[in-house]
C-alpha cells in the first residue's frame, strides 16, 4: 500500500525510481475517491491523473459493461472540464450517467464505428489537454496501443479510462494480458442489502483493484456511485468505527 515510507533510505529509493520513470511532478497528482480505504491502497492517495486506467465488469458485466460504465462515469463526474466518451456503437443511456453525477452538458460522445477508430479518437482526446477525462470502450487493448495512450495521457494530465467490454464471456480472458495502464479494476454486482420494506436499496459492487503500479492489489465492497459520483464503503453495521473498516481490505497477492 502507498503508505509513507518507513525509512529515509526507502524514501530516497522511491524518489530515484520516480525520477527514472520520468514525467513532471504535476502529473503525479491524483483524484481521490473520498473513501479512505480505497485511497490508501492507491499510491498518491487516489486515482492518478495523467494516466490510463482499465475497468472491466465481472461475470455478465464483461459483456454489458453497465457497472463499469457507471464506475467510469462516477470518476469522470469528479474531474473538471469536458469529458469525451468514445464507443464503437452507442448503447449508453445518458440519463443514467447523469444520475451518477455526469451531467449531459459535459459529455461529448464519439461513435467511431470500429475499434481502430475508437483507439485513434481515444488517443487524440488524451493528447488534447483541455478535457477532464476521456473514456473509451474497447475489447482489445494491445500493449503497444496502451503504451501510446499512457504517454498521451502523461503529456496532457487527463484521466484516461478504458472500459474493457467483450462480445462473449470467453473473450474476457484478454483482461489478463499485460498493458501499460497504471491501474486495473474489475467491478461486479453484489446482492444489495435487504430493506425492511419491499424495494431495492442502493446498488452494491465488488470493486477489485487487480493491479496498480507501485501498489498492491486489494478488493472492496462498496456502494455504487451517488448523484455526485462518489462511492461509499459498505459495512454490515452502519455505525462501525473507521478503524474497523480497514479489515475489509484483503490483499490478493
Amino acid at each position, binding site marked *: 500500500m502507498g503508505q509513507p515510507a518507513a525509512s529515509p533510505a526507502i524514501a530516497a529509493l522511491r524518489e530515484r525510481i520516480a525520477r527514472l520513470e520520468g514525467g513532471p511532478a504535476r502529473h503525479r497528482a491524483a483524484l481521490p475517491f473520498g473513501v479512505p480505504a480505497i485511497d490508501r491502497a492507491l499510491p498518491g492517495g487516489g486515482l492518478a491523473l495523467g494516466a490510463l486506467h482499465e475497468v472491466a*465488469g465481472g*461475470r*455478465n*458485466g464483461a459483456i*454489458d*459493461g*453497465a*457497472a463499469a*460504465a*457507471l464506475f467510469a*462515469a462516477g470518476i469522470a463526474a469528479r474531474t473538471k*472540464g*469536458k469529458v*469525451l466518451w468514445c464507443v464503437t456503437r452507442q*448503447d*449508453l*443511456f*445518458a*440519463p*443514467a*450517467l*447523469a*444520475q*451518477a453525477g455526469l*451531467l*449531459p*452538458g*459535459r*459529455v*461529448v*460522445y*464519439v*461513435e*467511431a*464505428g470500429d475499434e481502430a*477508430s475508437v483507439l*485513434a*479518437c481515444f488517443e*487524440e*482526446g488524451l493528447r*488534447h*489537454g*483541455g*478535457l477532464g477525462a476521456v473514456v473509451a470502450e474497447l475489447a482489445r487493448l494491445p500493449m503497444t496501443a496502451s503504451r501510446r495512450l499512457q504517454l498521451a495521457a502523461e503529456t496532457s494530465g487527463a484521466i484516461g479510462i478504458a472500459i474493457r467490454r467483450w462480445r462473449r464471456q470467453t473473450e474476457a480472458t484478454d483482461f489478463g494480458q499485460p498493458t501499460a495502464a497504471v491501474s486495473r479494476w474489475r*467491478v*461486479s*454486482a*453484489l*446482492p*444489495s442489502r*435487504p*430493506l425492511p420494506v*419491499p*424495494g*431495492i436499496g442502493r*446498488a*452494491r*459492487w465488488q470493486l477489485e483493484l487487480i493491479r496498480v503500479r507501485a501498489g498492491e492489489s486489494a478488493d472492496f465492497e462498496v456502494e*455504487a456511485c451517488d*448523484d455526485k459520483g462518489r462511492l461509499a464503503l459498505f459495512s454490515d453495521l452502519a455505525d462501525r468505527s473507521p478503524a474497523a473498516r480497514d479489515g475489509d481490505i484483503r490483499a490478493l497477492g
Partner: protein
Amino acid sequence: MGTSAPSAETPIVMLGRQGNRRLVLAADAAARAAGLRVGMPASKAQVLVPNLQSFDLDAPGDAAALDRMALWCLRYAPIIAADPPDGLIIDTTGADHLHGGEEAMLEGLVSRLAASGIDARVAVADTWGAAHACARFLARPTFIVPTGQAPAIVRGLPIGALRLPHEIISGLLTLGFERVGDLEAAPRASLTLRFGPELGRRLDQALGRRGEPFEPVRSPEIIEVRRAFGEPISAAETIARYTGKLVTALCEALETRGLGVRRLDLVFHRVDSRFEAIRAGTAVPVRDVKRLTRLLTDRIETVDPGFGIEVMTLAATLTEPFGARQIISSLVEEPEPDITDLIDTLSNRIGEQRLYRFAPVESDVPERAIRRVAPTAPDDGTNWPGDWPRPPRLLAHPEPIETMALLPDHPPVWFSWRGIRHRVARADGPERVFGEWWQRDAELIAVRDYFQVEDASGERFWIYRAGDGEDPETGSHKWFLHGVFA
C-alpha cells in the same frame, strides 16, 4: 409561372429546332407515359397527345441553371462541374466520409433535390464515363458501382450510354451493335474509319482506359490562394510544408476581411490533369494557422499524387464573420478549456454526425427522453428529472422475456432472457409510463409498467410490462427487458 403552372398530370414537352426540323427535345414523365419520345417531330407529338402543353427550349437558360446548381452542390464536394445538357459531375474523393459514406451522401443529395422539385438520379463510379452511363441507365434513383467493377457493368449497358452523337448511335444500331460489350469486341480500326475517332475515345473513357480532365466550377466570391510549382511535388512532407504556407496566406486574406473559415477545400492539380482534394470543416469560425494546417495535413495520406502535383489551391468555401473577442480576465474562475479544435479534428476524421451530446427531451417514454445535439451546442444546464432509476445500458429494441408474474401490479417471480433464467430476489416498481396521446393517436391509452429487478447474484435489470395488468386495451401484457443496470 405562378397560378398558370400546369398540373403534374398534364403532359409537357420542350420543343426546339434541329437543322430544319422542329423536334421534341425534352419530355416529362406524363408525356413519356403518353408515348412521346425525345427526338420525335413536334407535329407528330401534337397529333398523338391532344392536350399537349409545349414550350420552347431555352438552352442558354438551362446551361446557366445547371451552373447555379453546380455551385449549390459545392456543399457536397469541392470538385464539381456542369455536364451539359442535363448532368452534373461531382468528384467525391475525400468528401464522402463527411456525409456518412457514399450511400448516405447520395440519399441526402437525392432527397434534397427532390424537395426542390428536381427528380435526380445519381451514380458513383471510378470514372466520369462510367458514372455518366450508370446514372442514366441503372440509377433508381441511386447506384454505387463497387470499385473495379465499372468496366464489367458498363459492358452490359446499351450503346446509348456512351455520350455519342445521335447519328453515330443510330448508325451503330443499324449495324446491329446493341451493347457496349459488342462494340468493344468489334475491331477498332474499321469502326474508326467509318465513325471517326470519337467512338474509340468515348469507349475508352467509359471503360476507364483514358483519363478525362474537367474544369471545376468556382464561385467568384470565394477567397482562394494558389501556388504553382516549377517541378511537380509528390512527397507527403513537401505537400504538408506547402499546405502550411497556403494556410498562412489564406489566413492573412481572411484577416483583412474579418472572416473565419468554416469549410476549407485544398485541391491538388496533378500533372495528368486530374484532381485530388481534401475538404475540412470546422465547428466554429476559425482563423488559426496552426489549427487549420493540422486539419488538412491530418488527411494528406488520402491524397494520391500520381506522377506529381503541379498546382495547389486552397479555398475558403464557407466563411463566417470572425471578429476579435475580448477575453475577460477573472481572478476566481478559470475559463473552461476550448475543445472545438479537438471536435474539428475528430469530425474531419470520422464524420460530423458521429460526434454529439445528449440533451434532455421532456418525455416520459425513456427512448424518447434523449436527443442528439451538436457537440458545440450551448449547454443550457438542463438535466433529466432524477427521481427514478435509469439503466446505463439501454437496449435499442426492448427484448421479449418469459416471466411468471402476478397481475396486476406485482413484479415477476422469475424471468428468462436470452436463454438464461433469473430468479428475482428484490424488485422495485411499478413506474407507470403513459403513451403520448397528445402526439400519437395510437398511444391513446397505451401504458408501460417499469420494474427494476435484482436477481440472486445482484445483477439488476430494467423490465416492463406492456399494459396496466387489467385492461387488455392498454397493451399486450407481454413482458420486455429494456435495459441493464449492473
